[in-house]
């Protein structure tokens, strides 16, 4: 195909032959170059980009080294690169989403928290510098500092810092950081609560001994006032304030202001401006229980909790409460609650939950009323519960690990899946073999009630009388 190339090759070869053919390397008389063939298809290239190495790029690279080091917990290395990164402070990058000064604050804090050679003194020194560095996040830096102090048990220093931060004024910045200020005040309130509760304990101890110290009592009351004012403020703002709410309610209850406490908890739980928060309902439920309130209000608190977190641990209490109820509707809800709880893996091996379910299911089967409740609940679960709860493997394991659990589960499985279900079959067989009385009774019960299974699973709707 490349016939036209030959002439050139020949020509070159001829020239080569004229000269000494095997010229040694490096000599001036070199053989001419022999050119290879070109491919059939020729290649088409594309463009490239190039970048300058400059200050900013170098600092960006530095930052990514720091991040890598931090992810791998190489604090020394991170500190090393940070030494070079701090230079970016001298350059104004106001357009960046996170300014270098904020970066340095966050990274530096993290390094100082984890580095083996850092000390509290060093940390304080760093934070003081960071405070002067950015007015825009002055209070954030203060707050972070306080947390660090608290984590290191320096409560007095933390309190001092909070008070100082509270008195900070910086033109319009003070107004702009209003939210942070509220937090600062709230945390000061929390520390006031802390000393109140300490003094309360001192007084209670001494009270037992018959001593009553007026000054301690007064101080305690002043702590109460300071704490109450600040805590009350923060929980007005929509948000998740579990800690603050708990402390505030504790204060109110101690001084007997139950109405206020109820109002606070109701607001916290039911105000739609607040984000959905299961704990709000838990606190309300606990308060109502403490106050010995009516079943109705307690149940309504738990009903909402059930809606938000069906797997909550209080669902056992809720179910027990509902089962006892005389109203059909509530018992129906109870069944729903316990079924829903057992949908979650966390409850899989909880004997209490299974016994709740077993008890209620057994009751229904014996009374032969409301079998449709079970049928309805079972309908949506029959595809996956057998594998999730009632496999042969689980039967074996439950039997080995917890006989009580396997008893309760076998009862439920027997009713839901009939006497031929894997779980029931295995457990009842094992139980009979071990000659345990209740398992024999269980076997009898299930065998006798087998038609119920057929009804629940919808296999013989017409043949069995309601």
């Amino acid at each position, binding site marked *: 195909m490349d016939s036209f190339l030959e002439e050139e090759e020949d020509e070159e070869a001829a020239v080569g032959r004229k000269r000494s053919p095997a010229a040694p390397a490096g000599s001036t008389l070199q053989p001419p170059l022999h*050119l290879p063939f070109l491919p059939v298809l020729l290649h088409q290239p594309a463009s490239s980009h190039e970048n300058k190495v400059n200050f900013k790029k*170098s600092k960006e690279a530095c930052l990514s080294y720091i991040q890598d080091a931090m992810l791998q917990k190489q604090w020394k290395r991170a*500190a090393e690169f940070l*030494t070079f990164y701090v230079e970016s402070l001298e350059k104004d990058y106001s357009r960046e989403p996170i300014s270098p000064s904020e970066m340095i604050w966050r990274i530096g804090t993290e390094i100082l928290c984890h580095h083996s050679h850092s000390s509290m003194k060093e940390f304080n*020194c760093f934070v003081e510098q960071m405070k002067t560095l950015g007015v825009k996040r002055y209070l954030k830096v203060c707050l972070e500092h306080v947390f660090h102090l608290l984590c290191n048990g320096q409560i007095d220093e933390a309190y001092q810092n909070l008070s100082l931060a509270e008195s900070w004024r910086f033109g319009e910045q003070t107004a702009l950081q209003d939210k942070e200020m509220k937090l600062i005040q709230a945390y000061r309130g929390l520390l006031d609560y802390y000393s109140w509760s300490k003094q309360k304990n001192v007084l209670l101890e001494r009270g037992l001994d018959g001593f009553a110290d007026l000054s301690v009592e007064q101080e305690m009351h002043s702590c109460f006032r300071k704490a109450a004012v600040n805590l009350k403020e923060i929980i007005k703002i929509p948000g998740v304030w579990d800690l603050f709410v708990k402390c505030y309610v504790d204060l109110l209850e101690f001084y007997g202001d139950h109405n206020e406490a109820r109002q606070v908890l109701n607001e916290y739980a039911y105000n739609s401006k607040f984000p959905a928060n299961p704990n709000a309902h838990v606190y309300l439920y606990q308060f109502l229980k403490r106050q010995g309130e009516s079943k109705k209000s307690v149940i309504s608190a738990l009903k909402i909790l059930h809606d938000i977190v069906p797997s909550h641990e209080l669902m056992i209490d809720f179910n027990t409460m509902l089962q006892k109820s005389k109203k059909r509707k509530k018992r129906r809800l109870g069944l729903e609650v316990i079924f829903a709880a057992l949908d979650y893996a966390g409850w899989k091996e909880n004997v209490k939950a299974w016994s709740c379910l077993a008890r209620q299911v057994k009751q229904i089967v014996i009374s032969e009323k409301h079998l449709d409740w079970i049928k309805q609940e079972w309908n949506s679960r029959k595809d996956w519960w057998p594998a999730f709860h009632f496999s042969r493997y689980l039967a074996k394991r439950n039997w080995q690990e917890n006989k009580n659990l396997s008893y309760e589960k076998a009862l439920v499985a027997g009713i839901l899946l009939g006497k031929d279900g894997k779980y029931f079959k295995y457990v009842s067989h094992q139980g009979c073999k071990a000659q345990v009385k209740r398992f024999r009774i269980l076997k009898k019960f299930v065998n006798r009630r087998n038609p119920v299974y057929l009804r629940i699973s919808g296999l013989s709707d017409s043949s069995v009388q309601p």
Partner: protein
Amino acid sequence: MLTHALSACQRDFNERCAQCSEVNWGLTDGGRYYCRSCHNVTERTREVVNTDFMTNSRVQTISKGSRKQEKTDGGCEWYVCEGFQLILKKQAEALEALGVCSQMKDEVLYSFWRCYLQKSKQAYCNRPAGETVKALSVRESSTDVDSEPERPSLLHLLSLSESEGDLLTDCSFASSMSKVSESTSIYSGSVDGSLYLMKNQKEKLRMTMPTTLSFCYMALLWLREPITLSELLRFVVEGHIPYLNVFQHFPEKMKLCGLDLKIFCVESWPVYEEVYNKMLELAVFLDLPRFPDITDSCFLHPDMLCIKYLMEANLPDELHNWTCRVVKKIGIGEVDFLTLVPGNKSTRKVKYDILAAAVIVVVLKLLFLLDDHYEWLLSDLAEERNKNNKEGGLYFEFKKWYEVVKHSLDVEQKKLDEERAKYLWRCEKPLFYSVKNKSRVLKRRQMVVNLQNQFGKLSGSVRRAEKPNPSSFQLRWSEENTDGSCFHGHSLKGILQEKCGLLTAMNPDYWLCTVKLCNEKLCGHLAHYREEDFPQSYHFVLRLFSFLLRIQPSYIHDEVCMIEHKLFNKKLYKKLKYNTVLRK
């Protein structure tokens, strides 16, 4: 600038002549004052003699008290070109310390700089540039020229008119400029900093920081010093040649602020292309004649540079034979091709370092094809032969070479990347745009130092070690090492064959990096490089040289394409024609 000094000297000595009572002084060659009316030579000598070209005349005159009084902040009047002069001096001194001959600083660079000042009308001319100056009446002045030191060479090139009036400007120039400085001092510390950036400087070349390096490179090229541009720039980055923060060496009284920062502060490393192109522009601007010939005994000749790069790339010495043949075949070793002729638009200007690297790449392609297949095949063959052949030299195994070099390259690249990330850009001497934010800047600086100390302690490693000694080689391979990591002595026999009595490559095929070259003047590139479009072996080789030269792989690729097209010009032309015939 020299002119200022002269007018200053005139003002310095204004006593009446002892013989004729005239005040009309000139300067003798010996630096003594003589009376132009009666030719009476006094005993008084001028104290400021600008014999050392790098001596900053203005700064010197300040110390003599002749310069305009100090400003309130303790600074003095100074001009932007003086700043650059100082920088050039520092850079030339550094180059001298690196072993460049002293001619470079004392003669070549000096002449270039003077010529530049004259051509750009900043000194050595009748009317220095600047709007304000034009308005002034140009009075005949009568002080003699400063004594010119003997310059045996090159001066003739510079067409420096040394007649009296030529070097003189109006006496009131300095005072008029001080008016300028008063009105503009808010914006710059130097007298003409603000004018410098404002002026429409299209017709003349404005000095920038990268241009200082263009000056240096031009001087080095003129002297045919064994240093390439890529090396020069690497020495700059490594800190052997002052560039970044060089203003910290300015005298105390030269205050930088405002627009001066824009001129003298750099936050980027010099870019090869920029420095190179500026050098070409400068050579044209200065009307320089053809540069001294680059012959095959010069370091910059591709045959010489190839030796260096082959060594550094740990490739067999035997390859040099092949690079020489390629160089010869396409005539890129010719003096006319290699020698720089400023302003000659018909020839492509040569980047010696990139050219040599590209020659090696082309040779590797010729022998090994670098198509991610053939080179491994050859490597397996060589391995086989090495197993059987216990005596004699080893055959070159591409695979082993790749492994060894890749490892070193990765290690060095990682080191380099980290060094770049760890680079400290700021110096002790803080700069501020205006006095207003001085305290803020100083505070920031203090904080940075504090934080550096605090985290430096936590970093465990001691402050950065001394900068490494300057070296031409970045990768080193020694045959004394017994670990077999040096391939210089390896033989290519395995991949060559005897054909018609001469050794040719076994490889009969070739692939071109590009079919058609782009127009460099329109597109800026001869070719375009995208890593994923090319074989990995090829990219690896480009990456290796890209690391050695500290330039983008695409620059080497461009040059490879250029060489290939010269090499295959005839074949390619025929083939393309053949293809079009087929299509018809």
